[in-house]
């Protein structure tokens, strides 16, 4: 029971307190790649803590306390051998609850990936119909007056620019945007994005899930901005952002949070140094350790 309470407290901390701190953390925008990792670490931690907490609750008093942990194998092969698989129907039922909690985000992730794949395939079909290949840039051009540049990630991925964007941008500005999109493709940014989407679909009421999705999208844009800035001027990239935004269809003002575009623009124009190597290593280690902590806690409570 104590272990279940500890897990619940940990899950609450990770799900509803830590995300607000991370969303405000100054270092996140200075090391966006690490911050993406931190959000994924928090999300995984929440799932692990919730599964273990529910498991403890379901198993307590039924004599199969060890069964769950044994099944998960968290205490190593020795632990697994020491605890027999719960053979009784009650024991099996007590594993059902944590398994359901574990399958919730997995199912949502699978649905998100399938949906994204379908949308990408449909869009690729559309591009075959209305796009044309611009050989000199290796992009697909669509004769559309509104400005837009985007990439279609994944297998057979490509970068797409509308005529409106090509008209609005100078050669140098367009090259900067292309480098930004190439960074998305090379970095396979759609994968962490889909993970965050799936997590948010599984726990729509959870502050962590909502913030992780928003922040992951914004942080990945920053990673791509940084990549473009290695080869192109700050002015070119910032001006390109203004021009493409101005040439697209304006949408009604967003509610809370405001657009990431302004945050990105300010960041491009007035850069701040990246955190020190030691600080970066520490952040990566903490992101990796957070999901392991509840496991250690669970083992210790045996």
């Amino acid at each position, binding site marked *: 029971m104590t272990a279940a309470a500890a897990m619940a407290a940990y899950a609450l901390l990770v799900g509803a307190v830590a995300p607000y701190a991370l969303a405000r953390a100054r270092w996140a925008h200075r090391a966006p790649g690490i911050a993406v990792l931190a959000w994924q670490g928090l999300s995984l931690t929440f799932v692990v803590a919730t599964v273990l907490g529910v498991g403890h609750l379901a198993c307590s008093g039924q004599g199969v306390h060890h069964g769950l942990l044994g099944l998960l194998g968290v205490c190593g092969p020795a632990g697994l051998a020491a605890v027999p698989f719960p053979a009784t129907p009650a024991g099996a039922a007590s594993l059902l609850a944590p398994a359901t909690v574990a399958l919730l985000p997995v199912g949502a992730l699978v649905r*998100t990936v399938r*949906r*994204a794949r379908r*949308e*990408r395939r449909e*869009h690729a*079909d*559309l591009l*075959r*119909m*209305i796009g044309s290949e611009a050989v000199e840039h290796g992009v697909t051009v*669509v*004769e*559309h*007056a*509104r400005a*837009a*540049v*985007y*990439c*279609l*990630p994944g297998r057979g991925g490509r970068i797409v620019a*509308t005529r409106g964007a090509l008209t609005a941008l100078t050669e140098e500005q367009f090259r900067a*945007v292309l480098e*930004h*999109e190439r960074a*998305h493709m090379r970095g396979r*940014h*759609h994968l962490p*994005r*889909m993970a965050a*989407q799936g997590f948010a679909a599984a726990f729509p009421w959870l502050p962590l899930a909502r913030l992780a*999705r928003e922040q992951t*999208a914004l942080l*990945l844009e920053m990673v791509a901005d940084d990549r473009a800035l290695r080869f192109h001027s700050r*002015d070119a990239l*910032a*001006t*390109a*952002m*203004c021009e*493409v*935004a*101005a040439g*697209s*269809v*304006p*949408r*009604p*003002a*967003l509610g809370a949070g*405001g*657009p*990431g*575009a*302004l945050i990105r*623009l*300010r960041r491009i*124009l*007035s850069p701040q140094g990246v955190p020190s190597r030691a600080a970066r290593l520490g952040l990566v280690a903490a992101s990796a350790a957070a999901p392991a902590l509840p496991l250690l806690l669970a083992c210790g409570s045996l």
Partner: protein
Amino acid sequence: MRQLGELEAEIMDRLWTWGRPATAREIRDDLNRKRPIAYSTVKTVAEILFGKGMLAREKDGRAWLYTAACTRQRYTAARMADALEGSPDPAGALLSFVEQISADEVQALRSALRAARRRSGS
């Protein structure tokens, strides 16, 4: 399946470029200049496009005459609007350079850029 999409695109491209009604045979003859393709295949795909509402057809003697249901520009505009102005965060299928923002927010971007240029210029 892949080839079907390709052939659909090629048929639409012909009809959009010609801007006049054409029979499946005419389309087949034009496609044949690039690679051999069966009349029945072209006919089937034209019927699929008719079913999708992308082609209109009318009887001309014993053959069907196909026309593009709307111009390439209008089709492009409508489909791109769907793709880019739909829900702000669909499944994350496309990664846009800049998300759509309001007119006020574009102004905010512009003034931030102007301010930065003044700073670096002075």
